[in-house]
């Protein structure tokens, strides 16, 4: 055993093996780098990115304005505004404020939602030049970056 090891050391076999490893990886098809603006990364379904208010197939918001998300939010950054419809006696959503600047994308709001109406979608290009733009209103949550919706 010792002789084999000595021969290996003498002929620099370990070094040659290491060099073979690096040589093998030169194959361009092994590349894992993405060139971002030209190649879009494949985002996982469970990625938590741009928040969205989900609509049903008729284009109506699923949100019932219950406020569970606002209660669940550890940062208290969601504000749900609603009015009571006098005829149907149901709450109607008027505002939905989501301060993305304070959001840590924990996904607790999404989990608390009873009607799957709020979704942290796969949209990820959220950088802006001002902080004001990070306070998303109802419009932006409905029609902002359209990421893929993942059902729980």
């Amino acid at each position, binding site marked *: 055993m010792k002789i084999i090891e000595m021969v290996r050391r003498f002929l620099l076999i370990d*070094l040659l093996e290491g*060099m073979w490893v*690096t*040589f093998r990886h030169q194959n361009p098809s092994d*590349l894992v780098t993405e*060139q971002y603006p*030209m190649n879009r990364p494949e985002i996982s379904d469970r990625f938590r990115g741009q928040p969205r208010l989900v609509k049903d197939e008729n284009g109506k918001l699923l949100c019932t304005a219950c406020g569970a998300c606002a209660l669940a939010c550890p940062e208290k950054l969601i504000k749900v505004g609603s009015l009571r419809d006098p005829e149907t006696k149901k709450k109607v959503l008027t505002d939905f404020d989501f301060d993305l600047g304070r959001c840590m994308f924990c996904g607790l709001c999404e989990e608390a939602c009873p009607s799957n109406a709020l979704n942290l979608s796969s949209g990820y290009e959220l950088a802006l030049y001002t902080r004001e733009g990070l306070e998303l209103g109802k419009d932006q949550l409905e029609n902002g970056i359209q990421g893929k919706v993942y059902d729980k």
Partner: protein
Amino acid sequence: MIQSILRYLHSDVTPGVAGNLFWVVVYVLLVFAGISVGVIFMNWFERKIMAHMQVRMGPMRVGPHGLLQPIADALKLIIKEDLMPANADKIVFWFAPVCVVMTAFCGFIVVPFGPTHAITDMNIGVLFMLGVSSLGVLGVIMAGWASNSHYPLMGSLRSGAQMVSYEIAMSMTVVSAVMMTSMATGTGTLSMIGIVQAQLQQHTWFAFSFFPVGLTALGVFSIAMVAETNRAPFDLPEAESELVAGFLTEYSGFRWSLFFLAEYAGMIAVSSIATTLWLGGWLRPFPNLLGGKNWDTAFSLVPGITFVALAALCLFYFTRMPSIRAMRADARGLAAFGGVLGVIGIVMLLPGVRVRVQDIYWFTLKVGFFMYLYIWYRTTFPRYRFDQLMKIGWKVLLPISIGVVIMTALIGVRQELLALVWR
């Protein structure tokens, strides 16, 4: 004047030997430009190969596949502010990079790119190259001293110790190669051209003569030359984790780029020593196995075919470029580059040109192999500790190289004696 210029074209000696000033100047400029372009190309090549070995892409944005990246880098370095520390020794600080570059380029005076393609042929060629290239240590130590700062000083001290200790092992292996030149003729030579011609006469590259001895000598030399040029895994003078950037710490901008240029020129210089001494210099591969006139012609076509193949590769990647507006200029540039390479390749296929160009081609190819090895080592091996470095130099490489010298002498004497007896 013009007659003497034209007369040189019919001679078959180097311009330095012919004493023709005009052609000497032309050759000096050609070699200087060639080495500089080679360094620029090496920069791109190294970043690209290292990136691919580490499963990255490397430079991709400046030009097609980052081909113009080294030019952009050079431009940035030249524009950058040239800082000089307030407490630095001004004159020495100024002179250190100049000294390093001068010594790195001086060695190329005797490098034979072909039987006539050298600036001059000195009868002490190898000695001159070793001497001049070891003067580079002086520049490094000057840089470390003049910076008047801790890290550069430590780095340059390490560098000095390292270069001096590996010089010995290197010179010993060179001695063995020089001894081999005396085999056929009885008298050895130190002239670079003479050494290659000795290999031509003996019908073997010195790497393969006296079987394990020549190969061992090449192995020892190729390890020692990595340490000599301060490259990974022996790049202790620049060990970032310990010494910031070693003797380069206080240098920036153009001065730094001079050190960079000198480092790569030094790499090319020692690689060309190794090529000349052991890999047959400008000689084409397989002269015995595939000898004869037809094979000579076939091998002389190889340089042109290489360039045409490179052109075809460029044009192939031109068709593969993404067809978006941002990449249009890149794609056209790549196609134009491929076209230029193709034209060069076709010119090289002409019978008059290919005879003269093939020497340079084979020499460059062999040097390129060593340059690839440098990059390969750098990606593969982690850096040695300083005591390990010294141990390898003094306790491993030096005894082996002395053994190589003794073995060469013994085998050589034995062969001469046998030849005497048989006669």
